[in-house]
């Protein structure tokens, strides 16, 4: 169990992490989402005790990471962002070293190494110097290190970065499986990963939590979520525009759009008015289309996409640049008018 309270990190004037409060319980896999520089890594570094918070606290199974760092750190397995390791060591000696620092001894070390090597498929490179390995192997070596003491808590900073698609899949499966009993926080900017692995996701932007919920809940907040898409084959002579207007006039519909219009086929999108309850929204539309003999072929409800939510909630560098430029040109225009 990890509990952060008002966790804040300041670098001089810059606020890297701003007042984060959240908890993660055993059996939960928390996905940490955010643009580059949003404060994901800084937050993870504070949780693992690498960086001291400017204010606020982190409790790891009840141990405060600043007050009682040793018992707190003992419970955590950590994969830092760049997956560092001692390049002059072999994979085997590096894992042995990690196991010893984790307090394992003798036979336990052998067993632990066997276990993590199987989990991360390092068998073929055990005797090799880490510096001779490819990026994927280096990454997995550091991942193996984080699992060596079978920790209750795992903090993984971009665990699938630099892996090939098969390896990505394997690591996701591994995280998902371990997440059944452990407390896991992992960061990523691959959104499909969040849907595949997480039981909960937090989106942070410029140090703030802007969304916190299950992937399904987050998707539901997408603008397009809940929209109904109907494929129709309306009788001859019916005008697409007027049909769209009729749809827009149905109760609960905010507005409608024509998505496709080719010959006899017409695809319409009806966006619900989210301010009102929408039970049976798609059903009533379907009923209406059938009674109007519009040739309803297909109807489905849009789930919403995580990317849309992500993009709506986080500000990209390009967007903030654009906003700045726009403000500047507006100011210039005003100046010219005056």
């Amino acid at each position, binding site marked *: 169990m990890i509990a952060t309270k008002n966790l804040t990190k300041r670098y001089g004037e810059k606020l890297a992490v701003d007042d984060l409060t959240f908890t993660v319980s055993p059996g939960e896999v928390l996905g940490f989402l955010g643009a580059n520089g949003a404060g994901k890594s800084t937050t993870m*570094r504070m949780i*693992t*005790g*690498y*960086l*001291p918070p400017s204010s606020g606290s982190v409790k790891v199974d009840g141990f405060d990471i600043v007050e009682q*760092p*040793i*018992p707190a*750190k*003992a*419970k*955590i397995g*950590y994969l*830092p962002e*760049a997956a*560092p*390791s*001692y*390049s*002059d*060591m072999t994979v085997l*000696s590096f894992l042995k*070293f*990690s196991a*010893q*620092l*984790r*307090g*394992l001894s003798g036979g*336990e070390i052998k*067993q*632990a190494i066997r*276990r993590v090597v*199987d*989990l991360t*498929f390092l068998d073929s490179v055990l005797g090799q110097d880490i510096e001779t390995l490819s990026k994927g192997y280096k990454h997995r070596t*550091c991942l193996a*290190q984080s699992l060596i*003491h*079978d*920790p*209750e808590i795992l903090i993984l900073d971009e665990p699938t970065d630099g892996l090939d698609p098969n390896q990505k899949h*394997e690591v996701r*499966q*591994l995280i998902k*499986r*371990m997440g059944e*009993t452990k407390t896991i926080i992992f960061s990523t900017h691959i959104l499909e990963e969040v849907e595949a692995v997480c039981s909960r996701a937090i989106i942070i932007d410029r140090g703030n939590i802007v969304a916190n919920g299950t992937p399904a809940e987050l998707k539901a907040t997408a603008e397009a979520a809940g929209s109904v898409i109907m494929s129709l084959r309306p009788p001859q002579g019916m005008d697409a525009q007027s049909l769209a207007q009729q749809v827009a006039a149905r109760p609960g519909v905010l507005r409608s759009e024509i998505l496709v219009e080719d010959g006899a086929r017409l695809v319409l999108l009806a966006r619900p008015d989210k301010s009102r309850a929408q039970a049976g929204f798609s059903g009533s539309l379907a009923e209406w289309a059938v009674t109007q003999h519009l040739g309803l072929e297909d109807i489905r409800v849009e789930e919403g996409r995580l990317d849309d939510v992500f993009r709506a909630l986080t500000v990209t560098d390009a967007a903030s640049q654009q906003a700045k430029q726009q403000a500047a040109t507006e100011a210039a225009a005003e100046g010219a008018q005056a």
Partner: protein
Amino acid sequence: MNAVAPTPASTGRRVSAVSGIVTIAKRELAAYFDAPIAYVFIVIFLLLAGFFTFTFGQFFERGEASLVSFFSWHPWLYLFLVPAVGMRLWAEERRLGTMELLMTMPIAPWQAIIGKYLASWIFIGIALLLTFPLIITVNWLGHPDNGVIIAGYIGSLFMAGAYLAIASMTSALSRNQVVSFVLAVMACLILVMVGFDPVTTLLARWLSPAAVEAIASFSVMTHFDGVTKGVLDFKDVVYFASVIGFGLFTTGVIIRSQRA
């Protein structure tokens, strides 16, 4: 992938302070000997030690069975060689990013600092021990006081330790080993120079004898002088131990401040 099998190695295990230090030291020492540079270093150390002893030190011309000509060059010999050994200690850790791993392991930072320091000290100790043919030589040529020689070795090792603690400190300052090397050489050079006779004579022109003596008391030269003659004074041991303590403590402060 296999199922995550429960292991007897339950989580939350603590490492004792000593085994933490030993684990770190063993890894560090292995890292020294894994690199060919270690053997190059030892060879250079032995060549230079021999060169100084037999040429400038006038080992034979002295006509006495002692290693004074060997030890008296150590403050200068160590000036470059010890920073070369110590420069990687923390700079490498920062360059590789393994600092983040080390500092999130369930050990206290001071254990890592001492473990790494001990490894480099042992390395220099090994290099120093390899000068044993000199002991055999003087014993074969005459009848030296071997107690004096042993005191000299112990004193020399202490001095190397003091230099090394300073190198550990400067190594924590930069991720660039060359920068940390240069800083360590400069710091050690100051410690040598303030007690070096030509410098103290120069200082005596402007300062009172008491002031010159006070400044010189900070120098390794002042404290190593007795050692070369076989006098391992408690005062001198305290001096070297304080430099070591200061260097390692400051290493800790620097590492801490970098994480903040």
